[in-house]
């Protein structure tokens, strides 16, 4: 939409969910807004715009980042994975399946941030302890679930991951 505002714009090229995407954005455009409004990937949500709630978490070159604290122009040339890219070949990932199975979401607004965070966590730690799971999700706010079933879902996802890789 920036073409309507007359601001100086920059071309950025991102690999989003494995697909090369291009956008022309003002320097101040947040990555969250770029993903949502320039690229139409509205699965990434914005809950606070100051990096506390974690709803906007995406994977930047595989690592979780707050897309509301990242300018789109600063990630030119990088790889981004959003919630839309977690399912592979139409099959839900272990983390997605576990969240549904364990009732780890209610309104679903914070869920994309949790899913991205947990996906990276379980990639690096396939057999986490209770303490490690708690630590892993302790940067994301959820106002619906009281976190009980989110914790269960992370353990369940680790289980599914192990079953399927074993």
């Amino acid at each position, binding site marked *: 939409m920036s073409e309507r505002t007359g601001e100086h714009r920059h071309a950025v090229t991102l690999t989003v969910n494995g697909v090369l995407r291009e956008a022309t954005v003002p320097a101040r455009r947040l990555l969250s807004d770029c993903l949502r409004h320039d690229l139409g990937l509205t699965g990434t*949500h914005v809950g606070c715009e100051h990096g506390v709630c974690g709803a906007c978490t995406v994977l930047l070159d595989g690592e979780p980042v707050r897309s509301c604290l990242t300018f789109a122009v600063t990630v030119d040339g990088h790889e981004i994975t959003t919630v839309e890219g977690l399912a592979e070949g139409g099959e839900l990932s272990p983390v997605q399946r576990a969240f549904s199975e364990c009732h780890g979401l209610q309104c679903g607004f914070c869920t994309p941030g949790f899913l991205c965070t947990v996906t990276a966590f379980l990639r690096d730690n396939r057999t986490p302890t209770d303490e490690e799971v708690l630590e892993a999700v302790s940067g994301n706010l959820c106002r619906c679930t009281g976190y009980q079933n989110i914790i269960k879902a992370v353990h369940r996802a680790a289980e599914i991951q192990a079953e399927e890789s074993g």
Partner: protein
Amino acid sequence: MTTKLFGERVQRREDARLITGQGRFLDDLGANALAAAFVRSPHAHARIRDVDVSAALDVEGLVAIYTWEDLPGLLAEPLPLLIPHPALTHGRTGHALARDVVRHVGEPVVMVVAADRYVAEDACSLIEVDYEILKPVVGVEEAAEAVNLVHADVPGNVGAHLVQEVPSPEGLSAREAIEAAPHTLAFRLDIERSASMPLEGKGVYARWDADDQSLRVYSSTQTSTSVRMAVAAKLGLPLPKVEVIAPDVGGGFGVKIVHPWPEEILVPWAARLLDREVKWTEDRREHFISSAHERAQVHHVRVGFDDDGRVLGLDVNILHDHGAYTPYGIIVPIITSTQLVGPYKIGAYRVEFSSIYTNTVQVTPYRGAGRPQGVFCMERTMDRIAAHLGRDRTEVRAANFIQPGEFPYDQGMTFQDGRPLIYDSGDYPESLRMLKELIGWDSFPAMKAEAAAEGRAIGIGVGCYVEGTGVGPYEGGHVQITSDGRVHVSTGLTSQGQGHETVFAQIAATELGVPIEKVSVVTGDTRRFGYAVGTFASRAAVMSGNAIALACRKVRDKALKVAADALEADPRDLEITDGVVHVAGTPSASIPLATVAVLSNPLRYAFDKETQRATQFAGPQDDDRPPVADGEEPGMEGKDYYSPVRSTFASGMHAAIVETDPLTAEIKILRYVVVHDCGKLINPMIVEGQIHGGVGQGVGGALYEKMVYDEHGQLLNASFMDFLMPYATEVPRIETAHLETPSPLNPLGVKGAGEAGVIPVSAVIAAAIEDAEGITIDRMPISPSDLYSLRAETRLRKTQ
């Protein structure tokens, strides 16, 4: 009914889209819409002398700027006062855009519409508003002193004053009963401000269809039907030309039941005026300073009781801070007043409240809606009685319980729905027994002594509540079976994560005998259902659940009648299993519901296989009977409403064990146990999820969350950095158990479950900390530094 899904842990049907990023929340819609942003008052109390927009006019991408003076007709009038009450003698509401005076930081003054939100905010920052600053009124007790006024025409800052009195069975007033009681106590209890704080803020997106002269509005609301009526009225549009849809809503917890928010009428108005799509998405700071808060109340309690701890008289005086305006009336203090008595038989009860204006964000219900404060009063009172008498805290509660044989139990007051406060069912002694067993109440003293020997301080607390749920006046359900055998269910109330698509589908599948995969549910879309109240007061499962069940029963009766004609059978001999109507005991004599749906419509163009198939069931034609006879309707559909005489009363009891750090005063919840009774469970998995979420918010309210206003009326912690909501690390593991005492008031026997979890948490945690520390806890929330100071004060008092 062979396809039984009612009561099962059915997986949620909402999840597939929400875990793949395919949900549709408000800001996910309207990719090409213009963006609205608002200039909001930076002052708590000020007179607007002038608005100068000239500097903003050169911003490239600017489309329009509006102030109050631009608003036509009803749009310029004050916003509606939704729930008047005779005691609310001085109700006041704000304007969609401020006129003359602003009364809290965050009140909208100017609306800007621009190409995108960045540009709209650029323009906002260039608009100069000249304010004459007036003296702000902050803090409920300061406001009650009325040195300064929030509204010049509201004397004493008092919006409402209400006294309710229930005499004792012997005819004594509460004050007489207290005077005559063997023991009396008097104390003060405080609860601070918190807020619903859904992760998704509010938002509105409107598109005007100039060809059709119609308006479609999407709003992140808890009541689309009422937003529709408000928009039609405020814009002067015929109701059928306005449709309002609540898309996926990212949590509500009460704040989104208020309507119309200024933006809900301004955005549609601008969309029509500009003939362009317009969208506004609330940001987090806006949500803090311009939505709604709740909870803050000061309570003065006097109680008289006998040697067994039975309450003979209770007198509570409440100061309620309702902020700058009263769009939602005085529901919160009314609920505190009436639900305070909980599961107890109080000898004589007097409750008085004053609802007071302050120059702060308005107060409207947040999950629990006045109950957490009421339960805090009652349960802290029970603990004080026990301490005074040296008795066990659960023993004192048990001595006051309403007994299972005493239902229906009339508390002698008028509830929030204007109906008598009569409890329909419950089993409080059994709840307490289950709770004590789960938490290990009787063995706790040994555990505490053991901990003390290790230099650790632990404490246990308990809290009981009764919650009026499923308030009227009504909800409706519409059910249609189409010729493909699919079942389309709709109800007008909205969803914000409660899993309605799943539980309502469970009800429909069970009632109709169809596989749940065939059922789809739509909520909160006025195109599908026009009359509804909304999702609040733990009412969706009770109200829409029963309405949908009743509508399904109508459709089922019709289906059986049509099928009976086709099968030449008696409808009473027919059953529906897996979507097929068959003669009981003779599975071969059968007809699919899809075919029955075709037969129900005399007009049968052969568009699909079912229509062709239906011809084999076509009976002989009766030339004297019209194709659609009197009292019949074409199509396999039905609609019904559920309207209860009064609310149904759920209940529950919580217990917690906490540990307090002797050095840092850090408070850690070691165990949290819930016994919950919401009548019959439709989906235990979803009910447990609701309890978990409620307890999570309760922990926030007990230990972390408060709105910190300074003396100028500035909200100092209007961000997630400073307003501390619990993360996973702050919420303990929650252990739950269910008791099911069905409601006799509705066909499904259900009671509401949405708010329950949050209600007693502050009372329970306060009690546990008090037990651990031996220090009286009379205000919540309590932080480690609060506890640290309390310890110091206590030490000081002891040495004096």
